[in-house]
């Protein structure tokens, strides 16, 4: 194999590969990327056996072929090369080395045979549909903060994507929860997605997906089976196993009948929460919300370190209420609200609150209160 690739192009592909390759792995080949050259381009493939990313980049191919080489080292080399350099990659079959030449720099790296590289079988998918990148971005971005990291309930370690009846009709829906907060985000069902099976997309895949959805104009081809999901553009394909488990029935935990309504500017609210939480010495900073007639008093009382209080003018005309929350959870939810006021629907100090943007029910959040 002998090819030349523009440095910036190769760097971008290698950064993406880096994200997937596990830093510490006991299987040497999984530290490598598979480079395959043919026609007028090369594909760069990385995997951790659960997620696979394939980047198709333009290259001058002098001699087709393939090899695998350490992802981390190649990424570092390319990163340190001067901008605008042409990078030549030459795999010498006899010495089993990959020679990298750019300007006057020359490197030779050990390789492992391409045959040893595990390529994720492109299985049959049940459903394939196209969706605009911004729509998918919204679905995953707004839900991902609620993904659980707790290993015990592994089926919560991802975003549950499925088709459901939403307040605005049939929807493609993403749900994530860690048991303390929950996010439910809806979008219109794209043509052809109606029969898609519900799948739990793992946290790592959701993270990698962000890079693929950056381009506003891109149309993403989504393919889903019971065990795998694939997001693809002509240049890039991200294939992932889905979490083998069943997502709990989340519908019953969304409080639909909460009647005490608070409306507040999300940015003001977040800034105030952030300020009062400063005095808390605890890792989970508890903030008390005291509501009475268009007045919201946020307070933190940490006996060891101090106390803080801030008053906000809000819209609230239900019975007075005192309720505590983890400041981090409030900030994360407020951070999802971008255009309109945040609307909180409370019931009692011991029951979950529902949060949404204005009266838009296409994205709702649930948060558990905390004893204060």
């Amino acid at each position, binding site marked *: 194999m002998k090819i030349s690739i523009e440095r910036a192009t190769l760097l971008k592909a290698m950064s993406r590969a880096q994200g997937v390759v596990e830093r510490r792995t006991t299987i040497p080949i999984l530290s490598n990327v598979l480079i395959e050259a043919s026609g007028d381009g090369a594909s760069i493939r990385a995997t951790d056996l659960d997620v696979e990313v394939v980047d198709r980049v333009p290259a001058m191919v002098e001699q087709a072929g393939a090899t695998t080489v350490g992802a981390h080292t190649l990424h570092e080399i390319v990163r340190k090369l001067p901008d605008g350099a042409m990078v030549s990659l030459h795999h010498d079959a006899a010495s089993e080395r990959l020679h990298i030449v750019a300007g006057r720099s020359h490197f030779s790296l050990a390789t492992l045979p391409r045959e040893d590289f595990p390529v994720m079988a492109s299985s049959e998918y049940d459903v394939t549909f196209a969706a605009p990148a911004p729509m998918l971005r919204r679905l995953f971005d707004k839900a991902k903060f609620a993904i659980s990291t707790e290993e015990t309930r592994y089926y919560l370690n991802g975003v549950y994507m499925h088709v459901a009846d939403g307040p605005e009709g049939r929807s493609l829906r993403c749900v994530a929860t860690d*048991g303390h907060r929950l996010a439910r985000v809806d979008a219109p069902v794209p043509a052809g997605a109606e029969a898609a099976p519900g799948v739990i997309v793992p946290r790592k895949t959701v993270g990698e997906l962000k890079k693929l959805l950056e381009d506003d104009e891109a149309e993403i081809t989504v393919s889903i089976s019971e065990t795998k999901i694939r997001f693809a553009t002509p240049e890039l394909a991200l294939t992932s196993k889905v979490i083998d488990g069943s997502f709990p029935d989340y519908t019953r935990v969304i409080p639909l009948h909460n009647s005490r309504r608070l409306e507040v500017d999300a940015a003001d609210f977040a800034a105030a929460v952030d300020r009062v939480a400063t005095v808390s010495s605890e890792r989970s900073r508890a903030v008390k919300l005291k509501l009475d007639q268009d007045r919201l008093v946020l307070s933190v009382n940490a006996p060891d370190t101090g106390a803080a209080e801030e008053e906000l003018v809000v819209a609230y005309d239900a019975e007075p209420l005192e309720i505590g929350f983890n400041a981090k959870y409030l900030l994360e939810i407020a951070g999802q609200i971008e255009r309109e006021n945040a609307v909180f629907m409370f019931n009692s100090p011991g029951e979950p609150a529902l949060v949404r943007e204005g009266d838009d029910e296409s994205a709702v959040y*649930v948060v558990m209160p905390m004893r204060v």
Partner: protein
Amino acid sequence: MTPALPALCRDCLRRFSAPPGPGRARCPACRSPRTLRHAELETLSIAHVDCDAFYASVEKRDDPALRDRPVIVGGGRRGVVSAACYLARMRGVRSAMPMFQAMRLCPDAAVRAPRMEVYAHASRRIRALMDELTPLVEPLSLDEAFLDLSGCERLHRAPPAALLARLARRIEDEVGVTVSVGLSHCKFLAKIASDLDKPRGYSLIGRAETEDFLRDKPLSIIWGVGEATRARLARDGLTHVRDVLRADPRQLIARHGAMGRRLLELAQGRDSRKVAPDAPTRSLSAETTFEADLSAPDLLDAHLWRLVEKVAARAKARGLAGRVATLKLKRADHRLLTRRATLTEPTQLADRLHRALRPLLERALPEAPFRLIGAGLSELTQAQEGDRMADLLDPDAARRAQAERAADLIRARFGDGAIAKGRALSAGGFRISEKKSSTTRGGGAADQD
């Protein structure tokens, strides 16, 4: 003529002088034979106080009908022995033994489910009595602690040995359990001493006899020498303390590193560790080594539950909650596996701890058999910072937590009376408590009420 030695009556606390010689001196005041006579009686000041078969003693205290019967605390939701009274121990019952084995050895035993909150409550009362004597109390677990009584003589107008005898008597009178006291000049020997004369014992190891006392003891008597170290030392021909004393110190340290240094010091009866009351608790843990390596998932889980209950009781006794749960397993080849789970918020509840650790145990099962299992809680915070949030997806968790709390509360407030009634119902012992247990385990709190 040999000079008379200082002596002390453990019953009436009278101090007197007695000539050395075989047999025990009787107290000149109350004629009790429970006396102490030792040259260093008035100078030794580092003590280890250890409750005798603590859990079982508390059960006997709360139900006098059990007094002369062998009592096993255990079963509960799972089938291992948590504690056995001395009558049961005489029949071969040991803690951490599978329940069926214990019942085979001692079929007439009364079996009681552990009531950790009651034990924690008793432990707090004992701790309060200790705190009256000295600020230097270092608890090791619910039922044992080191005390440093140096310099307290003036304050209490009695030597440490007498203060400890009074402490033991007060614990018997006010808490209703017996303790064994070890008094020496360092922690290592005090701990050994408390074990010499159990139950209701009191032993002294003075500076003068330290070397003679240790010389012919096996090395396993030394703190930190477990099975693995013992085997390694034995390969070098070191099996008894005397072998260490005879060995070349440099070679010992070269071959065994820090362990070698410690062996050398402790073999000479030197232990510079201080009684450290304020060492902030960084973690709570409990572990158990099996008599025979274990692979049965149910039994391993039974041990895990027992240990988790212990850890939770300690957290509750100290007002702590922890964010990181740890499972420790030692394989048959002595390789140690440690698995950690970070919880979404700190907890002090046995139920939550167990739910975090059980999946870790399940995943580690392919590595079985194991010779040791342990459970731990770390990244500790104040209790009020933990267990503050309910779980959206597990509404039962809130009820289980409430049940655990309610039980704590009732027992703490009404203690013995309230519980005596409940216990009468489960007086059938093993079978009933086992059956009750599986309901709690499988079906959650809902099935219980």
